[in-house]
């Protein structure tokens, strides 16, 4: 179908954008539009005002400082995927982005936009969770930081207020010693995940796992961390029994009901399989992982 009629705004500054946002009860932010426009074509979303933030120059840049990668709300997924400087400090980002839809979608879609859309099966919310990232949200009353674990509430629902705009995504750089992996299972390449996992592990010199971060998408109403599985790995040398135990512990987080793609039982099986593979890959990439 065709999108419904809306009022179109194209602000030049964040201040102008938040003021338009404050004036409208049902506005939507248009960045890349790769999630918003399909929902409008389907008439699932029917905003009366569209705020196109593509002409706010300050949002189109990303930078890396000592501790974090700061990604403006208009930075396209493809730019981050191809960035060697981002890859150098956080290789998991490229590996995750390669699973996000297809190249033509990533050329337009933004990192912040995917997080704001918060599809339960989307990959980037799991990336933000596993990396302990956050977003910066602006409203007419100022800016605030929302941590990943507070942002994602439910399928396509975030803790963002109606008058707020995500202006920045902040992802802490990965430790040099860390190992990483992103794996997912989909029916077709580029589809939303039946189940996906993101893993970051770090080991002490004698091979003891001292940092364990695991997140998953596609298995419930939102992307989640898997603390029970993380806890199994912490403080241990990772042999096949421990990795198996962790991947079994992940199963309890599968809450999605049976759908056309998978039954709950099948999703649990898929999750534990890819989780165990991802832990093995992360371990092999980590310094001291196989001491």
């Amino acid at each position, binding site marked *: *179908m*065709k*999108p*419904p*009629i*809306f*009022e*179109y705004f*194209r602000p030049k500054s964040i201040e102008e954008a938040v003021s338009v946002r404050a004036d409208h009860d049902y506005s939507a932010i*248009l960045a890349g*539009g*790769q999630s918003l*426009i*399909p929902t409008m*074509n*389907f008439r699932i979303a029917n905003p009366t005002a*569209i705020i*196109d933030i*593509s002409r706010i120059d300050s949002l189109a840049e990303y930078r890396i400082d000592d501790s974090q990668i700061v990604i403006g709300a208009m930075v396209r997924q*493809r730019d981050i995927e191809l960035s060697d400087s981002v890859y150098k400090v956080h290789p998991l980002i490229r590996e995750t982005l390669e699973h996000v*839809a*297809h*190249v*033509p*979608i990533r*050329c*337009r879609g933004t990192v912040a936009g995917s997080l704001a859309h918060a599809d339960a099966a989307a990959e980037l919310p799991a990336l933000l969770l596993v990396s302990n990232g956050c977003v910066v949200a602006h409203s007419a009353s100022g800016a605030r930081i929302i941590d990943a674990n507070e942002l994602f509430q439910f399928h396509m629902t975030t803790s963002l207020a109606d008058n707020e705009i995500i202006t920045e995504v902040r992802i802490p750089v990965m430790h040099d010693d860390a190992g990483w992996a992103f794996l997912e299972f989909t029916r*077709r*390449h*580029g589809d939303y995940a039946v189940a996906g996992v993101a893993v970051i592990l770090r080991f002490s010199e004698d091979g003891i796992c001292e940092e364990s971060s695991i997140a998953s998408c596609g298995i419930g109403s939102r992307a989640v961390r898997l603390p029970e599985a993380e806890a199994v790995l912490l403080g241990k040398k990772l042999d096949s029994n421990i990795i198996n135990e962790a991947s079994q512990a992940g199963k309890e987080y599968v809450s999605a009901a049976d759908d056309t793609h998978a039954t709950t039982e099948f999703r649990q099986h898929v999750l534990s399989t890819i989780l165990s593979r991802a832990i093995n890959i992360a371990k092999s990439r980590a310094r001291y992982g196989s001491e």
Partner: protein
Amino acid sequence: MKKSQIRPDYPERSDDPLHEVNMEVNGELITRNVSPRILLADFIRHHLGLTGTHVGCEHGVCGCCTVIIDGRAARSCLTFAVQADGSKIRTVESLAQDDGSLHPLQEAFKESHALQCGFCTPGFLMSIVSQLEETEGEIDLSEDGIRVMLSGNLCRCTGYQNIVKAVQSAAKRMYKTN
């Protein structure tokens, strides 16, 4: 534009003010007034009369409407025409020369019989051209690599094998690799 303008099939409404857009389409500067809800795909077809860009699923899955915006492949059904204001757009009509000689990728499609009904072909061509150009041919041209490159486009005649062959042969011609 080479083709005559086709009458837009969108009714104009007084509560839907028009916005001026300027863009360069296939090298030609154009200015039009459009409703903000007009999708770029419909703008290209109905306002500019360039009907080579096809509309399949209208929600970003099939890839038939793929065009190149500022050097990168994009779904024109997931872009409003107003967003492309100030951009350079290339559609499938830009590939062949004015004298009718085909782009190397089109030649390869023809020789490899890489199209059957042809509905999906413009989207495949623009998606492949942009990815080859973006990487200057430095892209994985194994069968697996090409299938990833093609993964954003659906062919309902399922003639993928010949499309893979055509991409390999076109990349050789365009970049003299392998």
